[in-house]
């Protein structure tokens, strides 16, 4: 019974994945077609060029880069905040010690 349910879940998952990939590919194929239509020297005069990634590979690369960039930013901001706290603490200590002497 459990194996049967697992099989259904697996086929559902695969189905959603295939549908997603197909629709993404289909969408991008349309965009590529539009970009190719508006290449300079062909018939660029008639259409407005709406910028977009050229293919699915470029699109994934851009979104992965954005994700990685934000993750790096969060990590760096965290490290910098810790550094700032420590630097301020040392600065205060120096300030009070100079006042004592």
């Amino acid at each position, binding site marked *: 019974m459990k194996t049967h349910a697992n099989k259904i879940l697996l086929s559902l998952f695969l189905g959603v994945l295939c549908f997603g990939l197909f629709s993404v590919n289909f969408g991008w194929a349309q965009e590529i077609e539009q*970009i190719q239509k*508006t*290449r*300079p*020297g062909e018939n*660029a*005069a*008639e*259409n*407005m*060029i*709406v*910028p*977009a990634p*050229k293919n699915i590979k*470029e699109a994934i690369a*851009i979104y992965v880069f*954005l994700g990685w*960039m*934000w993750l790096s*930013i969060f990590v*760096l*901001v965290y490290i*910098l*905040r810790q*550094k*700032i706290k420590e*630097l*301020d603490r040392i*600065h205060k200590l120096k300030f009070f010690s100079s006042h004592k002497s």
Partner: protein
Amino acid sequence: MNIKKLGAGFQAWLDDRFGLSGIAQFLKEKPVPQHKHSIWYYTGSAILIFFTIQIITGFMLILYYRPTLEEANASVARVMTEVPLGWIIRSVHSWSATFMIAFVFVHLISIWVTKSYREPREITWMSGVLLLACSLFFGFTGYLLPWDDLSLSATKVGTDIPRSIPVVGLWVTKLLRGSEDVTGDTLTRFFGIHVCILPIFLVLLLAIHIYLIQKKGMSVPVEAETRGEDVRTIPFWPNFVFREMVVWLVLVGVLFSVAVFLPPSLDKPADLMAAAPEGVKPEWYFLFLFQTLKIVPPKILFVNGDTVAVLLMLVAGVLFFLLPIIDNKPLERKGKIITVLAYALVAYALIMSVWSLL
């Protein structure tokens, strides 16, 4: 010889030639005041970050851009469709210009409201106003470069404005356009101004501005200065620079995200013979001036309405430039009225811009 020794040796060699240790010592000792208005200090370095991004992306775009009537639009189209990630580079260039100008406005208004231009920082303010003018002219000249319908029409409207100035108006319009009307000569001229003349002016002004900030130090709130209070300070390096780095990281992240999700499009090539398209509007930072000119009546006391409006704008610009000299008693009644004027100007610009978009 280990790497640490080698590094120290190289550092000593550089220090001997450039005197870097003196600069490092100055930055370590430079105090940065900490108070309730300190947040505005970060807008200055944010402008510098966006300007640096402008230079880098500008160099990348210049490799493909061709400033001629026949090729300008096609070369931008090529950047957007054929050059790997060219559309992102163009988008980052365009959005960093928008962000830079927005931060220049915020920076100047914050200085106006906190009265940081008071003695001895008058020239720092004046160089800042000139930097604003340079940034706006950068935006204006850059807007024409894609050479599409909208940019051509907006440039026609923009270069037509000085025509209303008595005596020199027509000459200024011709100087900007290179002829009676906007043509290929205007495009080449704007390209030259955008990539050569303005960067030289901006870098010179920036050098003067930064030098004056280092020379006179960062201002403290006028109330604290008058009462002779001691304002808490932190060292510029590393305490303040690390704080600035947090701001830079977040701003760069926002810039790249906006550039990816909202890239500027490119319209069909401009036709010099075609009628102006409907709903021509300049960039957002000129909207309030554009709307002001639109609502001015054609005649004011037998004088051309546009002439009166343009002359009033010029006078307002001169007064803005001379603000530290006019507002020489910031804590008295006059100073308070001038602060209220700053808020009124911001409200006016916002209302006019929104009205123009409706």
